[in-house]
């Protein structure tokens, strides 16, 4: 009985304790996803070649060009190397639709966004935009061809 009285006393005192506001200092939660996370299917060799052509020349690859590229693709064992050669060859064409350095530097964000939309079929993330903006603005030797070439030969370009 005596113990029970103590218990009531403790509960009573606890209930009389003044209310405190609890402040939590933290950043808002942001869901972080990896770039291109939804791309999980590798392009076949012919898809890769055809899409690269379409992306760079703005038209469907002609049959004879596709056959020529497929022939070369099959005739070398190192597929990364032959893909690289095909892309370099496309970039060397005067018909390749790559912005000029002047256009790139006049609107860096626009250039990056357009390149990502064309080649990666998505907007660049904030971090990617910051990276490329810093790179282009800090290095006068960066050309649109360098950036296009890197994008076209990256892992993400081989997936859809």
């Amino acid at each position, binding site marked *: 009985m005596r113990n029970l009285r103590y218990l009531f006393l403790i509960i009573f005192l606890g209930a009389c304790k003044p209310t405190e506001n609890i402040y939590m200092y933290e950043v808002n939660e942001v869901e972080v996803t990896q770039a291109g996370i939804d791309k*999980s299917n590798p392009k076949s060799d012919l898809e890769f070649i055809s899409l690269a052509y379409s992306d760079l020349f703005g038209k469907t690859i002609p049959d004879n060009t596709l056959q020529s590229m497929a022939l070369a693709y099959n*005739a*070398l*064992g*190192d597929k*990364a190397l032959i893909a690289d050669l095909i892309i*370099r*060859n496309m970039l060397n064409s005067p018909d390749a639709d790559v912005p000029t350095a002047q256009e790139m530097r006049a609107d860096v964000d626009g250039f990056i966004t357009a390149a990502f939309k064309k080649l990666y079929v998505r907007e660049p993330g904030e971090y990617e935009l910051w990276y490329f903006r810093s790179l282009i603005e800090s290095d006068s030797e960066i050309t649109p061809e360098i950036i296009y070439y890197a994008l076209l030969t*990256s892992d993400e370009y081989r*997936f859809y």
Partner: protein
Amino acid sequence: MKRRNFIKKTGVATAAAFAAPYILPSGRLFARTLSRKANHVVFCLFAGGVRNMESVHQNEGNLMPSFFAGANSTNPGLDPLPASPWPVKLRTEGTLFPEMRYKEGPTGHFNGHTVAITGVYTNTGLNLRANPEYPTVFEYYLKHNSPAVTAKNAWWVSNALGPYPALNYSNFPGYGPMYGANHIAPTSLVSLATYPTIGQPKQFQFHEEEKVMEIREFLNKNFNQKLDNASAGNYNTPDDAAEIRAFIKTMFDKGVSGQFLNPLGVPTATANNDIFTILFAEEVIKNFQPELLVVNMTDVDACHQNYTQYCNNLRKADYAVAHLWKTIQETPGMADDTVLIIVPEHGRNLEGNTVTDIYGRFGIDHTGDNTSREIFSLILGPTGVINKNQTVGTAANPVGESIDIVPTIAHILGFDAHMPAGMLPGRVLTEIF
């Protein structure tokens, strides 16, 4: 007592550390191969189906004057060729196995190539659309050679596409594309058809290449997928890839400037695909001095419908091999340090088929009769390494099999000591040493 144990254990551990072989980052033990017979092997698949009757037995006269002595064939329909590029008969430069056998499995071209390159007989279930079931000689070499070397040292030069590109690596667990050779089908890769698509690549300056790599690394780090090894083909280091890229560019430049006209000294109108294939194999040799190169020829397979063309192409194959041997001997780093192995993948039937050529001679298929399993092998090499002017085996006592080539290559290059036991059913052709 504890202190004594501690000192004892520490001493043992220290001694073991000094005694144990160095373990490379790849996990491979570093134990330099000391028992090499030579530092380079060129394996020429004298393929397409060559019958011993027309080669070593000279039933049609001597169709292989660069290899063998004997009165030249007087058959009609043979294109004139320059004199043999090599001053002596190749047969005198090495050991001849005139009666080797392709003992088991279908006598198909891809079966024969697979057997020659894996050292394991195939059966009718061979998948033409897949890499071989068992490791190739390239994989054994690139995985087990010590110290480790890169794929720039291992080349598979095929004279056609179809299933042949798949022979540069297998699907065998623990092997595969990471140990695959650099495959090249040169007459497809360096051609008028491919010039517009790979013959004029954009050239970046060195500092531009570095920037590309930096950007690509950034992009790849932000992406969670990678092409699987098989999709990426065989692997080259960035430096090796740059060298090979430059090599391909040079090949196109040479082609455009007319340097490949009259290949190997043969008039262009007379040259066949085999001649051009050997020409490019020689370019690989001159550029890279590979430790292991396999090249094939298959133009004699015209024999199915044109026996005369078979004989004609056999002479061209003979000429091409002599030129290959000459180039090897003129290439610093490979001269007097290379073993050249020549062997057809299989033979042809004893009986002809029903197709006749313009001279009324019947074509010949290869469907697995005893004659189509009869092949020869000539193995050339440096003096003091390979026995010269030696013949091993007779029709009554055949010596050597197709499956013996891979273990023999492994033994010449010395990596057989590091290979797992029981992988190869064949034997080393020790008679050549």
